[in-house]
């Protein structure tokens, strides 16, 4: 018996609709995040993540409705990220039915926000989401070295902050989990940035979720075996039906990674 490695489909939600598109055959409305959540729940996903990328504050409340409707049907952990700036934002998401919140920009701007949030709601509820891009540095007389710089505002703003150092600081403040996304790899289908994932996973005691770049089932295996991630997050390979969650679990299991194979998702 061991803890199972988690597979986490991620849904990008804008104004209450899925934006990358989800192409399940059995969905009535492929743009409805709740339908997609129900389909993933039935398919054996271990958790779900919604990233709210709604730009206008007018439509921010749509995510609460999405989370609330999801909680009616899916009895599995749900994380919500995007636009989480205040303790009140977290409280509203939890009351709607979220289990964890992912904090990105606000964690960089005000690291104490993470500490306040963790004190109030518990470490287990606070995921710090780290968007990082590779950069090369060169100390005098040394070889070029790769490191990773974190970005905020959905990857638009560089910060000059080193990702591995930042990760350690966030865990000190009370982050219970880290969602590490390689911006170099995101959307490329060329696999996780395994060095980034491993550098962070090996330096903190909390679980790390690998994200950004999954194109094949081998990428998922590598994220765990080489990246040392506790969970893998993917969007398009599942949304576009390239692979089902079940196929991903079969494959990872064949490669020696323990998977949860409870036969179905709902009935008593």
């Amino acid at each position, binding site marked *: *018996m*061991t*803890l*199972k*490695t*988690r597979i986490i489909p991620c849904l990008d939600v804008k104004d209450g609709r899925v934006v990358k598109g989800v192409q399940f055959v059995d969905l009535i409305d492929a743009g409805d995040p709740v339908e997609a959540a129900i389909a993933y*729940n039935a398919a054996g996903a*271990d958790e779900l993540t919604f990233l709210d990328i709604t730009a206008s504050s007018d439509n921010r409340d749509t995510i609460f409705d999405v989370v*609330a409707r999801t*909680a*009616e049907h899916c*009895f*599995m*952990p*749900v994380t919500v990220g995007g636009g989480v700036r205040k303790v009140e934002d977290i409280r509203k998401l*939890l*009351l*709607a*039915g*979220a*289990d964890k919140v992912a904090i990105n920009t606000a964690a960089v701007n005000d690291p104490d926000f993470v500490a306040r949030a963790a*004190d*109030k*709601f*518990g*470490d*287990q*509820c606070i995921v710090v989401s780290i968007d990082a891009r590779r950069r090369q540095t060169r100390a005098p007389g040394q070889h070029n070295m790769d490191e990773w710089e974190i970005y905020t505002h959905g990857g638009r703003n560089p910060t000059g902050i080193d990702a591995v150092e930042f990760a350690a600081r966030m865990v000190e403040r009370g982050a*219970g*989990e880290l969602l590490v996304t390689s911006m170099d790899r995101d959307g490329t289908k060329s696999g996780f940035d395994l060095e980034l994932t491993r550098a962070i996973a090996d330096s903190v*005691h*909390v*679980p790390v979720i690998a994200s950004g770049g999954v194109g094949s089932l081998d990428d998922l295996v590598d994220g765990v075996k080489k990246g040392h991630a*506790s*969970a893998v997050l993917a969007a398009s390979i599942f949304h576009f039906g390239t692979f089902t969650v079940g196929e991903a679990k079969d494959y990872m299991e064949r490669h020696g990674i323990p998977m*949860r194979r*409870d*036969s*179905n*998702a*709902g*009935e*008593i």
Partner: protein
Amino acid sequence: MSTVTIIDYGSGNLRSAHKAFERAARETGTGDTILVTDDVEAVRRADRIVLPGVGAFADCRAGLDAVTGMVEVLEERVIRGGVPFLGICVGMQLMATEGREKAVTKGLGWIPGSVVRLEPKGGLKVPHMGWNTLTFRQSHPLLQGIPDGETGLHAYFVHSYHLETERPETLIATADYGQQVTAIVGRDNMLGTQFHPEKSQTLGLRLIGNFLRWKP
């Protein structure tokens, strides 16, 4: 038809617990009314009582104490009245004699033992976060229809501390995570789960359904 109260003392994601209990009540056909409340009188009248809880032990204890009369009504109904009780996560940990998270804090003292930090071997991550199977240490009506062991169903855990029981007869189930982790404790009319049944899909809904039918 009976009433189940889920105690709201400012801790956690009560909507998902509410929805899971409603679903289980529908599917088991018990038709119970599920009430999320901080009203001491409603808890006094309840046929079944659920104490959820997330976050730190001391904060949850303080939150519970902040609702005037709640601890007293719990003692009255659960200990003296024999009302079926389910504690979830920190709600389960509060059943212990004391918590040793940050500071030493008194629990409800229903299950002799302490809540201590996990110390898994092999450099495993803390919190213990995710899906794990259970090993039943004894049979219990709330485990009916739930397979355990390697090929059994999974429960969703997320915690850094667990309840070390002093008396083996109160230990109902464990999980394996680089150490023996207490998963379920109980005695008489009370049960507590370290994992989240409301987040544990099939296993969780079955356990909640069993709780709704339980006649201790």
